């Protein structure tokens, strides 16, 4: 790796890291806002039947409508001033768990039509375990703190340095013992 290539590579990686932290923090804000609302709505149903035998929620607990309604009142910051953000969030149900699926789409377009000028960020948060059609356990809820860009950048550079050290050690270990590779 030439020095220039390496510097450009690190610069690019750090920019990606910063963007990812931005998406992660926006998504954490939304999770912190939505999770207690969902838990509050589902808590009375612990040990009770919550799903229809054919799948999907019993009609009287229409949490997805509640989520849609709350999201309208929530504001996600755009990555750039001119971007607009589309949010999609819904409770996903399978045989074992109920989770909150969250997609944030920055910079135009919509989430159905995944166009190149969109930046997507998907998150899944598990809300509860289900068995049969009943809720058996809720996951502990704790507020997610935003990630600190400076701290994460420091960790990344440290990890990059360690990675190089391990690559050298790996090369020594495997290539100097040619009988291993054969």
């Amino acid at each position, binding site marked *: 790796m030439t020095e220039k290539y390496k510097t450009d590579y690190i610069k690019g990686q750090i920019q990606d890291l910063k963007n990812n932290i931005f998406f992660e923090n926006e998504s954490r804000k939304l999770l912190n806002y939505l999770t207690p609302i969902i838990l509050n709505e589902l808590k009375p149903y612990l040990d009770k039947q919550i799903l229809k035998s054919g799948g999907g929620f019993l009609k009287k607990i229409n949490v997805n409508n509640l989520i849609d309604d709350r999201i309208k009142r929530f504001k996600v910051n755009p990555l750039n001033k001119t971007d607009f953000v589309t949010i999609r969030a819904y409770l996903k149900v399978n045989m074992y768990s109920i989770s909150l699926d969250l997609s944030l789409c920055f910079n135009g377009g919509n989430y159905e039509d995944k166009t190149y000028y969109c930046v997507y960020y998907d998150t899944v948060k598990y809300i509860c375990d289900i068995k049969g059609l009943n809720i058996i356990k809720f996951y502990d809820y704790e507020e997610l703190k935003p990630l600190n860009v400076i701290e994460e950048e420091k*960790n*990344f550079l440290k*990890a*990059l340095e*360690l*990675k190089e050290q*391990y*690559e050298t*050690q*790996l090369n020594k*270990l*495997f290539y100097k*013992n040619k009988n*291993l590779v054969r």
Partner: protein
Amino acid sequence: MDRKIISKINKMFDLLYDLESKHDLFKEQKDYIDEFMLIKGYEMKINNNDKCVFIKIQDKK
């Protein structure tokens, strides 16, 4: 495989396993060792001291 080398590989893999949980930059190196050892007939296990060790596949009973 030489015992000394196995012990070195175990040590390195254990460190990478730990580091990977903190940053996915280490995934590639970790997967490389994992795949290589599998080809050589070793499988990764976590021992009683919470360390990663490779065990020869036909030896485990």
